[in-house]
């Protein structure tokens, strides 16, 4: 299933946040969104997932979601959003219960997604017993459990320290390589974008407009450290963003 954004604009009251954004999120690809903070990346993701309505423009689902898909558009949040009173297992069964999946059927799904995120030994643990990286893996496992057509990831690694972030990026690459998924991946970290993105959308400062869309055709699994082409792309992205970021930083916030 593809997602198509047609001329999306959005304002909060008098504050114009997004302006005329048109792009495609193709099936089986990871599309990264980068841009200075406050440019509307999170807003765009909320619009795509239907948590908010765009002021102008349309968001279309092209094609049908894969078979067995329970929740086509599924979020992975920056702050994990795990229920602290439920175990790892309970947090995943939470999103299955409402679809009438219980008992052994649920156990099978839970065991599968926990294995894929290397959490099998922690199914009984409570969120407070887990490290940040593990919490985010639980959140990813929960997202996988509903067999999403598109994963909407809002800075999923930003709350983690840099070593954990590296490890989790490897995990995401392995996950995608085993079974490709579609994702809209918001980040402000360019290294993350060039490591994970098949396509990188650069947004300008608020109101966010598409400045450039960069395609990277190196397979995810081959994007090792020190790859000259990737570093060049990252530098190109940074050159583009530096002035935007500086200008955005110096704007007075009157909201």
């Amino acid at each position: 299933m593809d997602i198509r954004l047609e001329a999306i604009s959005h304002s909060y009251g008098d504050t114009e946040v997004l302006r005329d954004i048109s792009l495609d999120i193709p099936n089986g690809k990871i599309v990264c969104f980068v841009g200075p903070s406050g440019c509307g990346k999170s807003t765009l993701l909320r619009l795509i997932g239907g948590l908010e309505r765009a002021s102008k423009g349309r968001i279309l689902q092209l094609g049908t979601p894969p078979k067995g898909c329970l929740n086509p558009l599924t979020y992975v949040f920056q702050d994990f959003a795990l229920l602290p009173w439920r175990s790892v297992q309970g947090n995943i069964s939470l999103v299955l219960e409402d679809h009438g999946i219980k008992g052994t059927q649920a156990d099978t799904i839970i065991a599968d997604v926990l294995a894929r995120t290397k959490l099998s030994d922690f199914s009984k643990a409570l969120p407070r017993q887990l490290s940040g990286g593990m919490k985010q893996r639980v959140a990813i496992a929960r997202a996988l459990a509903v067999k999403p057509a598109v994963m909407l990831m809002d800075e999923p690694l930003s709350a983690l320290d840099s070593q954990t972030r590296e490890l989790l990026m490897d995990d995401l690459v392995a996950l995608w390589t085993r079974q490709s998924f579609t994702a809209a991946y918001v980040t402000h970290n360019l290294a993350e974008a060039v490591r994970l993105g098949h396509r990188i959308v650069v947004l300008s400062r608020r109101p966010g407009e598409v400045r450039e869309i960069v395609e990277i055709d190196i397979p995810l699994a081959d994007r090792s450290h020190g790859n000259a082409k990737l570093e060049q792309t990252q530098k190109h992205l940074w050159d583009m963003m530096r002035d935007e970021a500086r200008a955005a930083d110096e704007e007075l916030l009157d909201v």
Partner: protein
Amino acid sequence: MSDSTAPTQPIEVRFRGGGFAPKARRWVGLAVFIFLIGITEVGTRQGWISSLTLPKPSDVLATFGELWESGLLFKHLLPSLSRLAVGAAIGASVGIAVGIMIGLFSYVRAGMVPLVAAIFPIPKIALLPLFVIWFGIDEASKYALIAFGTFTPTVVATYGAVDNVDRSLIRMGQSFGLSWLSIVRKIVLPGAMPGILSGLRISLAIAIILLVAAEMLGAEYGIGAYILEAGSLYDLERLFAGVVILSLLGVILSTIIGFIEHRLLGWRA
């Protein structure tokens, strides 16, 4: 750092952290009770506390024993407990329900919050005559008084607790397509539980106060009636025996809530 001063003795860094983290110290509470009662006992025996000021704790204990043996204890205690149980159960459950509605629906909030603010400061005891007219002199008016008194603090605690539930968790529930009822049952309620339970502690203490007040105004049996009778005869031993029963009741209820908290809120470190 500065090399202009003469070298001095190294000073160990002064510890200034710690504190602000109460831990379970089981026996301290008991020790405080024993100490105070012990002092009173010694004082009344030696005479530097006159018998008009305070009764001898051992005499109070003896009175308590008589009360037990004569079977009067349960004759007074059982009606009180059932009034407390019925009244507090009604008040707390209606209070929690209304509190959750206030937390979830804008119109209920707009309509009920001023109303609750208006009835909160009314001393509920003043309304007892009204309840007697409405519900009769029997049990029903006592239930109503206790229920009404428990209701308001429970409502306020509950909607505050619902307001404090992490919105990002609710957003998460919506993003996974959970039904409204599931979100309330599985996210809002458990998230509000810590606040609801600590509100319940206050509500139940108020319920005991109102129980006694209601029984003082019109009951043949009940702890309140017993205390009133003792008081009018200036029988301090019996008065204190009654008061001790009330205190014990308070401690027991608070322990029960602590137990429930331990069971339900084990997920908080």
